[in-house]
């Protein structure tokens, strides 16, 4: 049930067959060729990016020509493209759908909402990036990214799949934690972060498993204690509850929005 992060280097069953190592290499090349050129997409399309995802599948850009077909059910798909804002109400469903996808599977975070929450990241109902719940392989920035950008992201994923199956891929070094990055860290640490508590992952999985009961029951009953949310110091935070506060307007948010 759980997402095992250490198992990213998928090993094909052919590897374990004795005496076939030479033949298996050739067969594996064929399988890799097949896997990379038939990445079927499960469109986890919630908002604006979903329209660009549709445009990517439509006539002008035509993702079909590289074997990428959008399917309606997670059980037939290799790639989940998370396109759009994921809310607290939707997140357990996304996790549940991710678990229904067969291994090997990959995830693309499309657009700034799926990457970090964008300007909704501080809002009570939005989760700050889908990689706080499921592992992401390729990030495609933009609000929304153009169809061409999504195609570039899919090609990046093909390269990654090739490298993973060829045994060349290794995760990048931990990026240096600058002060600016610490400021914008989400209240729930990301999946690969050292600060993330396993309790959070467990609670998320329980929440995805018991959709009918809601998260509160899991929390209230015998669920393990959650990690305390980190202190974030954003411009919006400091002025939230009171009427009289000032100073938030000098924040650089206007520039970000102009780019968006």
């Amino acid at each position, binding site marked *: 049930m759980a997402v095992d992060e250490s198992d990213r280097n998928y090993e094909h069953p052919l590897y374990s067959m004795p005496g076939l190592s030479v033949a298996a290499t050739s067969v594996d090349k064929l399988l890799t060729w097949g896997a990379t050129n038939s990445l079927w997409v499960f469109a986890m399309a919630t908002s604006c990016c979903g329209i660009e995802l549709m445009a990517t599948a439509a006539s002008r850009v035509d993702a079909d020509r590289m074997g990428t077909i959008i399917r309606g059910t997670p059980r037939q798909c290799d790639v989940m493209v998370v396109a759009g804002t994921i809310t607290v109400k939707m997140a357990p469903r996304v996790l549940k759908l991710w678990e229904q996808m067969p291994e090997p599977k990959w995830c693309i975070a499309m657009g700034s909402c799926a990457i970090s929450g964008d300007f909704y990241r501080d809002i009570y109902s939005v989760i700050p990036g889908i990689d706080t719940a499921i592992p992401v392989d390729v990030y495609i920035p933009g609000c929304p990214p153009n169809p061409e950008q999504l195609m570039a992201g899919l090609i990046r994923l093909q390269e990654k799949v090739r490298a993973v199956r060829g045994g060349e891929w290794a995760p990048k070094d931990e990026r240096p934690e600058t002060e600016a990055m610490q400021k914008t860290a989400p*209240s729930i640490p990301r999946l690969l972060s050292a600060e993330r508590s396993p309790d959070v992952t467990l609670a998320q999985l329980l929440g995805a498993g018991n959709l009918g009961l809601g998260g509160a*029951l899991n929390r209230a009953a015998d669920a393990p204690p959650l990690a305390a949310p980190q202190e974030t110091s954003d411009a*919006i935070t400091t002025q*939230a509850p009171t009427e009289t506060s000032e100073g938030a307007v000098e924040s650089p948010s206007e520039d970000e929005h102009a780019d968006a």
Partner: protein
Amino acid sequence: MPTPEEFRALLEDDFGVSEWSEKQPPLIEAVDHHRLAEVLKERGYTLYVFVVASHRPGVEGAEDALTAAGYIELATGLRSPTENSQLAIWRVRVGLDEQLATLVDLFAGADWQEREQFDLVGVRFAGHPDPRRLMLPEDWEGHPLRRDYAINTPHPPWR
């Protein structure tokens, strides 16, 4: 065809509105809320447009009891689907613990709109057939659009 003059005359004669401002819709008593909607529907305002509630927190030392304790101001809009598309907007004020008569029996569209305002602002409607939250999960605590609700309130384990 309804006209603005007719709406003004109705409020002045039957609902005791004396203050008129170009910047704000007229304010009527909360007990008259349902009756006004009923009268307006008979007079041709048959298109249900919106309801918007806004939370005003209590002000210490205010003379008015409602202002001192804090209240919710509710504006409702009805439209006549005629040539001039006349819009009638009025406001009412209800205390934080009080209930306001629902308009669901007059306008079926008020069902979801009032649920949304209950969900986000916390105004309660008496006689609503389905008083559940609309936008947020059922187990949510608090009403986000109240002034004392911080925008970045955490909701473990998701944010």
